[in-house]
């Protein structure tokens, strides 16, 4: 419930502060970039709310360092 409320507030504030201005100034590349960011953020926010944890996770990148870390810790 809290997550939905937060999303609603953030989206409403964003529309009031930025989205209308971007559209009125015809800043379409900026609108596309903002739209992409919102899609990513909302996807993860909804996944979080629904308990879906199999989306690409930034923590997987940390695994790239595991071999190096093993060497450092055991060395």
């Amino acid at each position, binding site marked *: 419930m*809290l*997550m939905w409320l*937060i*999303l609603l507030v*953030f989206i409403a*504030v*964003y529309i009031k*502060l*930025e*989205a209308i201005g*971007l559209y009125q100034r015809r800043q379409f590349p*900026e609108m596309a*970039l*903002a739209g992409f*960011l*919102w899609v*990513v*953020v909302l996807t*993860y*926010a909804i*996944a*979080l709310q629904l308990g879906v*944890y199999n*989306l690409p*996770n*930034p*923590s997987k*990148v*940390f695994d790239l*360092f*595991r071999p*190096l*870390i093993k060497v*450092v*810790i055991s*060395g």
Partner: protein
Amino acid sequence: MNEKTLSSQQTAFLLFMILLGGSYVHVPPTLAHQSAWLSALGGSLVGAYLILVLLHLQSLFPQTSLIRMSEKLLGKVPGKIVGLLYLWAVFIMAISLLQDNCIILVVMFPLLTCLFLRVTLISPAVYTIYKGVSSIGRLGELFTWLTLILTLLAFIITIPRVQPAFLSPLGNPAAIAKGVLQVAGWPFSMVGLLAFFLPLVNDLPDKKKVIYWWYLLAVVILVLKDVLIVGVLSPEILLSSRYPLLEVLRLDTFGGFQRVEMFFFLAWFMMSFFAMLAAYQCLALGGQALFSLSNYGFLVIPLGLGLVVFSLYTFQSDIDFVSLRVLTLPLNSLIPMLFVPTLLLVVAKFRNNL
């Protein structure tokens, strides 16, 4: 003053607050055991190197952001890839700092949920970033002196409980080297955040020395902090401690008063919030440079919500986060922060010699 510029003094305060804020919620270099304070001293050389390289790059390309520099030196596409790598490190720092802030607040406010606390932290940050870079500069000016006074006060009342026997460095160079790597990754790699602020400094050529002086002061405080923590808690307790500084301060009593650590919580919170705010600001500035935007205003809210969501999604439990914190996260930020400026400096020097 222009809302989009900083002075060298404000940048120095920023650096001071970022370094202290990034390190206060963390344990000292535990991999170095008893020699933690010595490792902190060694790790500070990495931060000094980063300042030197970033200032040198700034003198070669005045008022140019690191991402624009990389596009100029390496070409448009490779430059953007290198810029993205740098922004990745900033992103990791930002979500880690938000997580840290949240974890410490959960200790203080156990009935509030992580989501609520994160949004409570991000909302003022969104407002500050909207107001422009100079707001962060002014906030740094306001916070620094209060933080410095409270930190010194905390040190003064803690010093009598330090046991020198806990501080004698162990003769194991491997442990010290591991500790140096750990502390170089966190907090000293955070010096790399300066790359986004230096192009906005209006009096850098004349007054850049002030940045070095405040860096030196931050190093002294960080080493002193590690000396106090190791000297009071002992290396054995330190290894199992989640918030060693809080535990050290919790031992302090003043007359009949207890829970004196809550008094210093103000300084602690200001520093860690400020470090998170600076990393968030760098993400916005980095996005602006990466996509060649005239202003970053429309990125601020989705980036802020993104930090909230990704910090929850990436660090799904505190136990995972603590294990990542020891070396994985420091290395994740250290490698790009060291690699990118060094690469750009080498390429710039090479091109100048041609």
